């Protein structure tokens, strides 16, 4: 278990991890594809060594150099940056970014205002469900709406998930393009001074929103039971603030306060109340046509850190790096399997290298699966890149 070890053993364990377990070959191939047509050496990497020493503008020419660099520096954190028009150490401030994977970062601390089981750095299998919902919704949008295919999902190491899209169209997307994709996926707007953060209007809902609601509905009852959004007077107050109509709000408050504290029962009562209110007030309903949907979305829809997506000079944590505070491996997982992930089954550097640990066998199996997932993605990315280069070569020969 994590509690038995501390960060001080990391300098001893990391070299072994990097040599034996970190999928160096796949990593270099993945980055090379992402760099194409630029060479691997134009990709910026950054290391954070022990004592927070930060090294930027690093780059590697091939896997052998990567291995040597890892052995020499033994980074506690490994981050990946953009592809430049020159070796990053040469250009520095004048270098121009040519490409970078489209990335998404979802962190559970952004859900602190809705999750009741944990706050801040804490995370559990209950609030992990929010990540499952986020992953399924965003994955579907990226695949079906934007046609992206090389979508890599990575556990961030503690309390979130990252998504890396390596398709050529995504890598070469400029800043306005990234902003547009981020805004497309963003439904929750507003800071701490706003109680109601989702407004869907009264026109027909966009198909991506309808699809997201279908995903949310798959998990909504479970999440309500886990989080008990309506069980205490404070939580009920926050919930009521999301109802724009005063008359309805008063009704709901009276009805729910009378009931026992089960959130799922209170929710069902609210839905009935709302439907009844709609029938009785046909003309006033334009403002609240999608109230139920808006509330579901505010509780469960993905909360992206849009700054990470919009910028392309951000250095983001690499897949399969070790999180210094938890020791967990940033494993690659498949969106379909997100719901089966249990947080304590995620391999850690300690359990992987300690044969006597009770989790050793299971964690090693999960690590192998994660590497296999990564391998599948790299293979299909290489194939897609080969096809693309061939098509480009053919078109340039046409007169």
């Amino acid at each position: 278990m994590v509690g038995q070890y501390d960060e001080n053993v990391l300098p001893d364990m990391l070299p072994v991890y990097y040599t034996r377990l970190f999928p160096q070959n796949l990593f270099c191939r993945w980055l090379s594809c992402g760099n194409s047509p630029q060479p691997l050496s134009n990709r910026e990497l950054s290391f954070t060594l022990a004592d927070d020493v930060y090294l930027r503008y690093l780059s590697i020419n091939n896997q052998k150099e990567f291995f040597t660099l890892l052995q020499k520096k033994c980074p506690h954190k490994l981050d990946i940056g953009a592809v430049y028009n020159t070796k990053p150490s040469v250009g520095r401030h004048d270098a121009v970014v040519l490409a970078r994977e489209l990335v998404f970062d979802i962190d559970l601390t952004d859900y602190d205002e809705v999750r009741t089981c944990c706050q801040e750095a804490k995370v559990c299998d209950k609030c992990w469900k929010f990540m499952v919902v986020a992953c399924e919704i965003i994955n579907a949008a990226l695949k079906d709406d934007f046609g992206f295919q090389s979508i890599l999902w990575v556990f961030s190491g503690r309390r979130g998930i990252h998504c890396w899209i390596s398709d050529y169209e995504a890598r070469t997307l400029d800043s306005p393009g990234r902003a547009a994709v981020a805004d497309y996926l963003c439904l929750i707007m507003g800071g701490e001074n706003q109680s109601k953060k989702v407004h869907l209007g009264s026109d027909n809902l966009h198909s991506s929103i309808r699809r997201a609601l279908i995903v949310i509905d798959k998990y909504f009852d479970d999440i309500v039971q886990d989080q008990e959004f309506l069980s205490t007077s404070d939580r009920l107050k926050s919930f009521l603030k999301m109802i724009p109509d005063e008359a309805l709000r008063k009704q709901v408050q009276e009805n729910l306060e009378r009931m026992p504290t089960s959130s799922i029962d209170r929710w069902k009562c609210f839905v009935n109340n709302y439907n009844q209110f709609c029938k009785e007030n046909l003309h006033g309903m334009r403002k609240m046509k999608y109230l139920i949907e808006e509330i579901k979305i505010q509780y469960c829809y993905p909360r992206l850190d849009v700054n990470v997506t919009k910028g392309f000079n951000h250095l983001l944590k690499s897949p399969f790096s070790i999180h210094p505070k938890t020791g967990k491996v940033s494993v690659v997982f498949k969106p379909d399997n997100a719901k089966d992930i249990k947080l304590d089954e995620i391999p850690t550097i300690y359990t992987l290298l300690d044969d006597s640990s009770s989790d050793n066998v299971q964690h090693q199996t999960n690590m192998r699966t994660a590497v296999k997932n990564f391998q599948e993605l790299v293979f299909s990315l290489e194939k897609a890149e080969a096809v693309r280069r061939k098509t480009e070569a053919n078109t340039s020969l046409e007169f």
Partner: protein
Amino acid sequence: MSFFYLTPVKGDLPIYLLENIVIKRLDFLKSVIKKQNIVYNEYVVEGSVYDTVGHYMLCIIVILEGNSEFTQFFIKAEESLFIHRLKTLAAYDLRCFAKKLLRIIRKHPIDLNFLNSLRSLCRHLILKHVVQHICSDTCVENCSLHSIKVYFKHCLTFIAKRQVEVKHGIAYIPCSKWKTYLIQLFKDNLRNRLSRTNLDSLHNDPRITDFRRLVRKEIPILNNSENNILTSNEVDNCSKNFPPCMLNFHQSLRNKHRLSHNQRFSYSLFLKDIGMPVEEAVKFWRNEYQQVPNGKHKCCHSWKNDEKKFIYGIRHLYGLEGGKKNYSSVNCLRLQGFTEGSCPFKTFDSEAILHLLDIKKTDSSWSQMKKLQEQHQYTCACKLYFQKRFHRVSNNVCDSNFNFSPVKYYFATKC
């Protein structure tokens, strides 16, 4: 020539005539922006030589001046003019417009990534039954009788607001949105020209230098320079004159000793542009970030541990480190676009905003402000508050709501 301005005209003109064309166009654009009645002006007859020459000449001046506010004014004015002209086109005229564009595209090699989308749209618009439908009442708000397929990268504005359906990277733009799309393409084309044209050879041309001097006389903001130094201990006092957004940031900072990234970024740039020098900025932020954060905050940084990073960050914003980029402060539109919400008129609940502005519900201007909020006119609501509080109206020719900014609000309180 088309008033879409896809390609310039070639030829010679005497300078006095060129000057006349440019000045008259500038006057015309000012009246367009102020939404005054559009009076006939021989220099801006759509598709005429003078019209095209005037447009491209102003583009040159805008590019060479490099003043972001003047550039924004120009883009907005030309866009408004285009919208006005498009509105007055009947079906037959719209068809001619599309035919002319297709002819231009066929004859000239134009480097534009969305050219295919423009061509596709025009090909539809030259069909009689299609263009008649577009210009008729049957093409209602959500009509999708006809639609064109556009690569998602060529209609980002629609994508960002989820206004079109997208499948596998292809957006389907329905006929009811074609005019809006045409306007967006016009704007993109103009922006593209203003940011990509290399005019190095004109910098030293004496005729151009004279021209620029002439135009500067007509546009006051090109001559502006405010020179007031703001020190870190004056901020509390000056905050009384801050716009609500910045006042909110300031109060948040004083209460919690931390701000989110976007908030800190926007507030830092605001302070820089109202005259806070970099040494004072370091003092100001150190004073707050040295203190323990108050209340729930994800921020794990402290001045003690991360002093070097903080100072580097502040200096970077002032263009003194790294890429030495010249950051300009955020304007209202950009603030309103932040996901976490920074414009109080847009994202605060009523009680929160009444508290921030220190006005009562019974106040007469409050109901007006609320109405503007409901109409999504957040900048107007802010200006109304400004008017009421300071008893004056901000008066600048380039100043309309689209380019209002916290810095402008603050300087207006000083006049």
